[in-house]
């Protein structure tokens, strides 16, 4: 497909998702309370979209990932939250 065809197919969807993300960040800002590691990870990942580097999807997924190599001592929960909380939080 040409670049124009890709834009015809996906531009409006991508634009919509970007506005959803912007509205989410506004919503978080309006809410009382403090940031946590998830928001920090999201803001870090957003920086990966700005340049012309390839493999953005891979890099964003990697940025949210547990970078450690050793198994954790025990699973204390079954679910994942989408961002690595860091070794201090027992996440890796």
């Amino acid at each position, binding site marked *: 497909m040409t670049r124009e065809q890709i834009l015809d197919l996906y531009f409006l969807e991508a634009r919509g998702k970007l506005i959803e993300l912007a509205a989410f960040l506004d919503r978080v800002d309006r809410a009382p309370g403090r940031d946590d590691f998830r928001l920090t990870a999201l803001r870090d990942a957003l920086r990966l979209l700005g340049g012309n580097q390839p493999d953005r*999807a891979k890099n964003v997924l990697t940025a*949210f990932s*547990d970078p450690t190599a050793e198994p954790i001592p025990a699973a204390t929960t079954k679910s994942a939250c989408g*961002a690595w909380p860091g070794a201090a939080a027992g996440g890796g």
Partner: protein
Amino acid sequence: MRYIEPHAHMVSRVTDDYVHLATAGCQAVCEPAFWAGFDRSSPAGFFDYFRQLTEHEPKRAAKYGLAHFCWLCLNPKESEDVKLAEEVLALIPPFLARPGVLGIGEIGLNKNSRNELKVLERHVDLAARHDQLILVHTPHLEDKLKGTRLTLDVLRADARIRPERVIIDHVEEHTVKLVLDRGHWAGLTLYPVSKCTPARAIDILDVCGPERLWMNSACDWGESLPLAVPHTALEMRRRGWTPEQIDQVIFQNPLQFLRQCPKFKLAS
């Protein structure tokens, strides 16, 4: 259009979903053993689940002309309890001879813990001793990359495992090449929010090529779409894929992997 749904948890779905799958051109549905959404309280709960997968569910599918196959294991979400896991693994061998059983799956890791790793190694050993195909679940979200690496190491450490007889499921952009480079098959799971959207799955096919990749809905009791594979086929058509290229990915590829188990046969 014809396709194979290689990963669907039909025990969690209503009968209408079988109607929709059959209507959309599904030729066979394959069901890996899964977590029920709550921990089963004893090995007896697993025994009944394995009976459901091998006796009851194939009959339910057959009413709509669908072949039903399954994979057996204790899911990684329940493998923190090693004693329970050992008791459940001991139940599996007699079931392996049943007509619709394709192999051991979906095994793997969930939170990448030491006990999960121990139980994964025991499942791999069970598969090797009984010459079974393996279907691997990779962890969710932030745990996926590390879990994929740990799983690949377990598989490589066992010399009896032939990489082409292992499919590693739920790959995404950051894990797909790790899996393919080791000679395994890789599964793209089509989920509304987590895992892959149809557009991203097709991107991965564009970048990596269609060899040793399949797509599945992994529909279960959570938010998921049983018709995700045919929906993605429609998206492939919009992206300029020919009917032959689509057939390769959604029918021929799963057929090529699954028929390594002689029990996987489709009605002609």
